[in-house]
Structure formats: C-alpha cells, structure tokens
C-alpha cells in the first residue's frame, strides 16, 4: 500500500546551508497494518509524513501510495490518503460538520452519501454535542476528534497521522486509539508518528525509528527487542539513539 524507496529531502537554509531532513529512507506499509514512526524532535518524522502526503516534494528517491507515485500522480495520492497534521489544522470559523462537508466534497463525495458519512463520523467520534459549534470554541480534545474525523471523512484506504494523541487527556487519547485500531480492522493502512512510547507499543504492528533524517530500524516489537536486547520500547528507543536511560539507572 505504501512503498518508500531511498526517499530524501534536503532543505536549503540561508543560515545553515543544506539541511538533510531525510536521507535515503526506505520502508513498506501494508493494508491492515499500523506503522509507527518514532524519533526525537527534528528527526525527520514530520518531513516523511509531509512527503507522503505530497505537501512537500522529495529531492531524492521515490514513494508510492495505493499504487500512485507521489511526484507524478499527487492528485491520486491525495485522494487515497487522510492526513492529520501535527497542528490539527481546523478552520476556527467553521463548525466540525462544515469542515467534514468541505473535505468530504474535496474527496469527491456528494449529497446524501456525504451527509450519511458525516453523521457516521460524528457518532463514531462522539461529536454529537458540538458538531455544529464553531471549531475555535472547542477544547483540544474536541478539536482533535474533529480533525481525525476530517482526515477520515472521504474514507481513504491510507491514513497518515502526525502525533494524533498530542496534548490529549487520557479518555480522549483512549477514544483515538480505539478509532485507529478499528480503522486497521477495517483494512486501512495507517502510518502515524508519536512521542508516546506506550501508545506506539500498544498500537503498532511495526515500528520505525528515525534519527537525524536516517532510518535506524524497522520491525515488529520482537524484531526491535532482538536487535537491541532491550525489552521496553522506551529502552529500545534510547538505545538506538545512544542515550542512557536515566530512569533505569535510578532503579539500578
């Protein structure tokens, strides 16, 4: 479903010169799979997701989503994905229902089918009480639910979610996790980035760790444990980054 081959992205910065945000990253994500992308801030996670969403253009390598090349067929790629940015990206002056209608229409949905889908999303993400309230009046959790519904409204086969649980309280984060698992069970291919190790360990079928623009490891939790000799994802992550785990040292 997602095939990434030697994907690179270099930015030209006036002060810093050439910045290699992503260097020759290759990976595959399959339908009915949740693929987690981990990495410290500035590792290149968001750049990878933006490249897959065709928001940015790669400077090297290729990638395809649902069989469509991200450079040559960006329109078809965008029709195949639901993208959630790290900042949610909700139009404050519109209501969640209006936002869902906007993105549903852009996704090619019309009339009764679209309204049914909106009603379904509103019910699934428990947004009935505020679906017609302006987004700038909503809490962070409400906004995030609306943002996820927005990414899913046109029922794309691929979901690209940048930190979907960032800043959420436990009940809302739990609801989002359940939603992601349900989406996987309905055959969706899901790529998401997160800083929450427990969430990644619980949700992901496979995990990739990116550091300084390079892919350090990809695999299931078992693969990661075998490669690092560590048990918990937090330990594995810090080990791959070459950072000592102070929490473990304190226990020792």
């Amino acid at each position: 479903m997602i095939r990434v081959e030697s994907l690179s992205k270099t930015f030209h910065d006036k002060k810093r010169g050439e910045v290699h945000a992503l260097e020759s990253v290759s990976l595959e994500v399959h339908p009915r799979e949740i693929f987690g992308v981990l990495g410290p801030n500035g590792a290149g996670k968001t750049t990878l997701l933006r490249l897959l969403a065709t928001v940015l253009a790669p400077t090297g390598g290729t990638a395809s989503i649902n069989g469509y090349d991200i450079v040559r067929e960006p329109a078809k790629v965008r029709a195949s994905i639901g993208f959630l940015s790290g900042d949610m990206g909700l139009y404050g002056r519109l209501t969640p229902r209006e936002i869902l209608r906007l993105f549903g229409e852009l996704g090619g949905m019309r009339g009764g089918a679209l309204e049914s889908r909106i009603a379904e999303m509103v019910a699934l993400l428990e947004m009935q009480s505020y679906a017609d309230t302006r987004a700038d009046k909503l809490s962070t959790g409400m906004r995030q639910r609306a943002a996820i519904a927005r990414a899913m409204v046109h029922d794309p086969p691929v979901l690209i979610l940048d930190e979907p649980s960032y800043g959420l309280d436990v009940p809302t984060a739990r609801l989002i996790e359940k939603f992601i698992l349900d989406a996987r069970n309905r055959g969706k291919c899901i790529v998401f980035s997160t800083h929450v190790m427990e969430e990644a360990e619980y949700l992901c079928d496979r995990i990739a760790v990116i550091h300084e623009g390079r892919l350090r490891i990809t695999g299931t939790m078992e693969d990661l444990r075998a490669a690092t000799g560590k048990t918990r994802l937090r330990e594995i992550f810090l080990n791959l980054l070459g950072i000592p785990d102070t929490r473990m040292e304190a226990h020792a």
Partner: protein
Amino acid sequence: MNPFALLTIYRKEMLEMVRDRRTMFSMVLVPIIAMPLLFKVAGYFLTTSDKQAEAQAVVLAIPERLAMPGLEDALRAGGFQLQVSDDPRAAVEKKKAAAAVVEAQSPTGDPLVRLYVDRTRTASDKASDKLRVALDSLKTEKVRAALAGSGVPVKVLTPFTVDRVDVAPKGKKGKMELGGMIGYIVVLLMFSGCMYPALDMTAGEKERRTLEILLAAPASRQEIVLGKILAASTAAFITAVLNVLSLSYAFSSGAIGKDMHDALGNMQVDGRVIALVLLAVLPTAVTAAAVMITISAFAKSFKEGQSYLTPLMMLVVFPAIVGLMPGVEASAGLMLLPVVNVSQLIKQVVSGEATAVNFGISFGSNLVYATIAFLVAVRIFQREDVLFRS
C-alpha cells in the same frame, strides 16, 4: 482543473470571510456608511467654514479718518462694516478685522489706497475680492465724473465688452469632479476591501496551521489558488458594488448634504453609469486579489502580511489620485497603466465622456494584468520555500 473542487474551495473561503469581523468591516461597513458619512461631514464643515468666512469678510479696519472723498461711502456701499482702529494693519494681523484700508501717497505724490490682507485666511481673501470690486467701482465713478467735466463721452471707458460662453453641458464640471472622486474612492476601497480576505486566506492560514491540510486534500494547487483568488476578488468586487451604490445614492439623493449636492450641480447617477463603472472595475478586482494573495503568501503571519501589503496600498493611492487631477486627459498610453486606467475610466464614465476605445483598452489591459497576476500566484503556490517559510 476540477471545477467542483474549485467551487468547494471558493465556498469555504466565502464562508470564512463572512464570519470574519475585520473583513466585514472593510468590505461592507466602510463602503456603505463611512464614505457617504465622510462626504456629509466634509460638506458640513466646508459650508459652515465658508459661511463663517463670509460673515467675517465684511469687517474692515480703517483709521480714524479717511481723507479721500467718497471712499468711506464706497466701502459702506460695498457691504463693509467699518471699524475704526489705531493700527489697522495690526487689527488684520490679530484677526480683529478681515482687511484694512489706509491712505498713503505714492512715490509720484498721487493718492494711494493701501489694503492690508492676510492671504492665508479665507475671510481676508474674500474681503480682498470685495474691496477690489468696491474700489474699482469708486475709481470708475471718479473717472466718469472727470470725463463729464471735460466733455469726453463716458462711452470711451468701455470700447468693448467681453461675453464668455461656457460650451460644456450643464453639470459637466460637477460630473467630472464627482467621477474623479468616485474613481479614486472606489479603487482605493476595492483594494482595502480585499486586503483582509487575501491576508486571511494565505498568511492567516499559515499562522493557524490550516494551509498544510488543505494542500494535502484532494485538490490541486491551481484549484486552491484560483478558489482563493476568486473569493478575494469577490470581496473586492462586493466592496466596489456597495461603494458605488452608496455613493451614487448619497450624491443623487442629497444625503451628502444640500450644499455639497448643490455644489455638484444636483447631479444624478443612473443605472447605466453604475453598471459600466462596475464592469470597468471587474478585472482590477481580480488583479488586486491575485497580487495581494501572491504578496501575502510570503508572510508567515497575518501581522507580517499587513506590513507587506501596506506599501502596496500606498502605491495604489498615487495612480488612483490621477483621476482627481484637473486637466488630465485620458490618452491611449494612460489607459494602459494599471490603476490609473480604471480610475480615469470611472471618471469618464460618470461624466459621460467614456469612449468605446478607451473602455476597451482599459478593460483589455486590466484583463491581461489579472491573468499575469493569477499565473504568478499559481507559481508562488508551488514553491515550498514560500509556503513553508520558517
């Protein structure tokens, strides 16, 4: 290009626009209320100050005694209130009198009437004009009396008379002035009317972090930019429509004040003129929107965008003001210049002077500018370094 996606983007921008107070203020409130009100207030102050100046212009300072026979009577006959003063010149300087009259002797020893006036004061200027009439009349009387004594016929004083005939249709001057004003105001407000929407759709979207999800939605960059430009053009055009309608109503109905209405020759702006003015501004509305969207796309925030667009507004003021200048004749070259051409064309349309050639040149060239501005905007929206500038 998918027209449905384009329409969806357009509808989204319009919905956001009507829910934005700043946009509604500049797009609706200013053209409907502020401008006619400004004319009414300006008209009130102009007429009030003119009446005050007229009342003050009759106060004339004179010394205790005027020796020249008939001078005092001539001044009274000219409508002046004579105010005896120890220092007539100081009375004018201290604004106690509009003007002063003193007697002196010329270097040749002839009688000399010296007038003291303050040209910076309207009342004094008016008094000066009235004095000239009164003194000319006295001079003529004296010459007439001298001629009568010497037997020379009085007719020698007027060997011929001059009759000046104004060939311009009645009210044309008022229409030219009004056309210049409408052209200037409409162009200026049209640009300011689309400034906030253009900023909101680009720099505002960047600041609120919504641009990224729009770029990842199933719509091409061209559809997104065109949807935004069409929405900003609509804002500019609505501002122009409301402005033209409210100004036309204010000028035609006399809502700007009776004195201002009289000064403009009680003129009416008919439906045909309004339609032609709106047709003339249409391509400029698109150009304004595309240029503003292009410039504000470079800004990271709404505030930064404002500082980019403010100089553009100042740049627009100067060419727009050409329409207000008396004596500027519309030439083919002038009708090719952006902003100048549309303000000039509006002036011509309102005064009934517009020709099909001038309309065609202005409209055609503005269409070309709009197309270029749109193409530039599309190119800018392809650039990551602009959209994701950090």
